[in-house]
């Protein structure tokens, strides 16, 4: 039986449909469930193996991106959530979902201590929303989400995507292999905090982190917007080159690997 995916919606989350499409494309059964319906029946989580908190603008980013939605989940769903991530499940938070998981303290969750807010995902250094394609390198090989992924070319779109944390937290993340993705330059060198490679000024170029187990992933870039070649910013260059060289254009591209990994984790 393939794993079932619960994709949250409501209060300004807005990427639930394309996130569902991504999971379905890799053969998983994805269902969109409104946060209020989940709060009414928290046990619903028991029927699922994967939880996706998609991108969006929950509560309009008011009081800090992801904060209000996280407060709502914490007050109404905390026990169910904690039970869910403590099982052998996968959780992903993309963009606004990443901000929500960070505010909930589901990441970094050092040593399984979920609930502590150790990282902030806050205003871009430019104080401007940034929608652009970036390159990220994967690290933290223990995460099932990242199996076989070295780097990805995918888009970011956020006004508050800057990971900030104390030096101690950073060191702990790094030494524990919990940094999942870092912004890099197209030639593979570290972004070194330089715009536009690092689009928000995140400390240590961090684009995504995991919990201690690697099963909970929170990332700012949008893999679901970069899973097919036609979605890429260089699609027209790629398809022209393929036509010129008489080659066929691959249908899939980098972002899909994350979703395939999720499917594989439960199928293998």
């Amino acid at each position, binding site marked *: 039986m393939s794993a079932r995916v619960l994709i949250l919606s*409501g*209060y*300004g989350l*807005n*990427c639930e*449909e*394309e996130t569902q*499409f991504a999971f379905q494309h890799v053969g998983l059964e994805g269902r969109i469930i*409104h946060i*209020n319906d989940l709060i009414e029946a928290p046990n619903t989580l028991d029927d699922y193996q994967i939880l996706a908190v998609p991108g*969006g*603008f929950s*509560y*309009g*980013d*008011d*009081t*800090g991106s992801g*904060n*209000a939605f996280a*407060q*709502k989940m914490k*007050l109404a769903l905390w026990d169910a959530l904690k039970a869910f991530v403590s099982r052998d499940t996968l959780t992903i938070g993309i963009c606004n979902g990443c901000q929500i998981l960070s*505010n909930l303290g589901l990441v970094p969750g050092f040593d399984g201590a979920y609930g502590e*807010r*150790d*990282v*902030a995902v*806050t*205003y*871009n*250094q*430019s*104080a*401007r*929303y940034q*929608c*652009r394609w970036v390159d990220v390198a994967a690290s933290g090989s223990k995460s099932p989400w990242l199996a076989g992924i070295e780097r990805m070319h995918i*888009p970011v*779109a956020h*006004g508050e995507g*800057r990971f*900030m944390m*104390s030096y101690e*937290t950073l060191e702990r993340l790094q030494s524990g292999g919990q940094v999942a993705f870092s912004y890099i330059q197209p030639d593979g060198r570290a972004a070194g905090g330089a715009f536009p490679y690092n689009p928000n*000024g995140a400390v240590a170029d961090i684009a995504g982190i995991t919990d201690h187990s690697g099963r909970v992933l929170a990332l700012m870039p*949008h893999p679901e*917007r970069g899973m097919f070649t*036609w*979605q890429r*910013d*260089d*699609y*027209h*260059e790629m*398809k*022209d080159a393929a*036509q*010129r060289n008489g080659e066929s*254009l691959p249908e899939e591209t980098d972002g899909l690997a994350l979703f395939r990994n999720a499917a594989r984790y439960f199928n293998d």
Partner: protein
Amino acid sequence: MPYRIEVLAHEEDGRALRIEKLLASRGNPAHVRVADVYTSESKAAADKRFAESLANPVTQKTGSLPRDFDWALEIGFLPGVTDNIGHTAQEILDLCSGDSETSAVYSSRLYLIQGDLSREDVRVLAGELSNKLIQRASIKSREDFEKDGGMDAVIPKVHLDNKGAVADDVDLNISDDLLELVGKSGIKNLDGSRRGPLGLSLTYLKAIQAYFKKEGRAPKDIELEMLAQSWSEHCKHTIFASPIDDVRDGLYRHYIKRATKEIREIRGESDICVSVFSDNAGGIIFDENYLITDKVETHNSPSALDPFGGAITGIVGVNRDCIGFGQGAKPVINRYGFCFADPRTNPGYSRDAKGNDPLLSPATIMNGVVAGVEAGGNCSGIPTPQGFVYFDDRFAGKPLVFVGTIGLIPREVNGKPGHIKKARPGDKIVVAGGRVGADGIHGATFSSVALDEGSPATAVQIGDPITQKKMSDAIVKEIRDFGWYSAITDNGAGGLSSSIGEMAEQSGGFHVELETVPLKYPGMAPWEIWISESQERMTMAVPPENTDKLIAFFAKRGVEATVIGTYTDSGRAYITWHGETILDLDMDFLHDGVPETPLRTTFTRGGDSEPSLDEPKDYAQALLDLMGRPNLCSKEFIATQYDHEVQGGAVLKPLQGPGRVYAETSITKPVLSSPKGVVLSQGLFPRYSDIDTGAMAAAGLDMAVRNAVAAGVDFAQLALLDNFCWCSSDEPERLGQLKRAVETIYEMAVKYETPFISGKDSMFNDFKGYDASGKPVKVSAPPTLLVSSIGVIPDVVRSISLAPKAAGDSLYLLGVTKDELGASEYYDMLGVTGQNVPETDAHQNLRLYKLYARASRDRLISSALALGYGGLGAALAKKAIAGGFGLDVDLSGFGLRADKMLFSESTGRILVSVAPQNKKAFEKNFSGFEECHYIGSVSYSENLFIRDVLKVDLKALDEAYKAPLRNY
């Protein structure tokens, strides 16, 4: 006692950095910190948990503020202004306290500034960070701050002195002069003040006077207000509807609507139109399963007063036009178009002679409008891939702010056509979404008049995208498919008066119990409730057996919905207020009682004689100067702020090629599993109106079509929208210009077989006031037609971007280049208007577009760019920048002087590059077409080289193109 929570960022904060940069740029280096402030009268707000839930401990702290600053500047909202952050904080407070009835929370922002600034410096900064129309700014030196024990806790609560408000009788048996005053300044209050413009002419007031004479009673205020907004230019489009010269049926019916009708007849079986002009948006066929809808609105007047609020309200408003199409379409793409004065200038206009009531500066307007559409679109999760910005100093009085939304709706919903709806007698009137406040009173009548000293500030609203998003998701993603309502429409201009009034045309009447409408605060008079334009509301017609479950479902989605009355077939518009009748109007009079006002026009062609100018001495410099002009330079700063990737469907994006050239055509897949894409573009040439509005309109329509064609649209599946933004439309000469423009686009649309599916007009884009020296001025926007195109590309693999792909490819110029520099960018740069404005030959163009469509279908074209502002010179430059390739070009064969060849803006032209292996097939495709010109090739060099004319380094071009607006 109010509780005040100050959340201070103790780590580096991007918002503070931005202000530091601004202050440093004017020689005021300072250290700035930002605190988010929440104020509430609720006891629950004193709970520590509430403060903790508002602060992220990693970067923020609450508690006492540090004292190492010189100035404290706090900006908060005035009473009644939408405070989205405050609303969210209140929801958190409700959650924390487990009480759903806590009092309001108000947000404000506190800046602690350390630096050598005078009070005046801080005051100037406050002016830049706030808008006094909607916000308060308080400034304290550290001494005052210490003395007062901090900033003051301000509760901006609305207090309305309207206890026991009733509907007043209005005496219309008065002199014509006084009647006119009622029309212009509004109904008189007891204290002698007036309630704000009704925008009713004397002719209209006479008709109303006669109606009530017949009824044998005086009208109530609410009746006059309803008639005023129903008959407003904004809602009735009286200028387009009135007989004009010998055109008895008016411009709209005779030209626009007729064009579509004729095209549909010619098309027959292959007609793509499904719903035109009858709904909130127009709808065409996307594929066998879906329709796509489109609507473009303007929000010019509100954006002039409050750029952020005006623009965000505009974009979320046009989203509702989409949600209110048929049974409810899902918004899938937003688009925008802005006309501003150059933000690097400020003419210093004022509403009063002394300069005490200045207009907002062009930079303030631009920044606010850009941010408003950003917040509205991004928060709503709707991609914004396509738009444009145009600059002309005459937009300093009123900017033009165009906002559009494309929707997707199944052709069949619950076994019935998705685009059909009808309110039936007996259906309940249900309003869902935000509550009603005094914001946006008189918006409809206000936008139909020119801005002057008396323009009401209450006309300003601020959209609340999250309230709308909750409502929108509940409707288009869930409730629509339950089949619980018979009809739905949005509340925009005119509020309930307009939405219910229009829906009741289908049933034949309504009865509203006005006291049941949920309000933001008590004390509103009935007429205010009825015409308030408070945002984020939809009105539905719901069979009685479905109301309970509908309301319960909305509640589960955090949306308030309320029954406020019943649709009837009584033939009457009928409102009661606590049982008492306060409005009772004949439906026919309400909708068709507008007196006909025949219009007369004159027309004079404008411009100067065609100048005889010397060739530029340095062509390279001329091209660099041209590329740096605001109309040509990159608007990347907007494209990157607008999320164009959300929903995952962006194919052809706003920044194209490795060189990231800002493009005005986009392709998006609204259905991820389908190969089809929606092609969008726009065209607008305001300056051509200085010579001929016909040429202006033709060029805009051609550009909108040609851009879409160049990107690979299926020519048979392409439709248009028209937005007229005119000025002084009570002057025969301006009306003559209008008539000429409308005649022209009728002819062009029919020739191209591209039907109009929706349109909107804004007829008084004028500012009357004073210039910087106190002299009276009238600043009128140039007569402007925006044409927007929407089409379908059968497979996005055929889409064509503007960037050349490889060195060695051949360059072709398709179409005719003539000596047509009249009102061009190049002439404007030289300070002349000229006479030879581009004339559009639709017949010739159509031949090209059909041949082109075949070549693009066969994938023979590697890149394409439709020529626009700046002509061939600008197009070559953009291509070189986009691809990062040099170009090697020879234009000697054209027989035109190089400056005319390079900078003429002749329409109907496309510049393409073709790969070597497709060269033969490409030329064969165009064999027999005499206007396919080989002009050179994509080169391995780093230069744009035009033989005997210029050689310019790519880096210099890139810099000239990207530098001007980079820091906005």
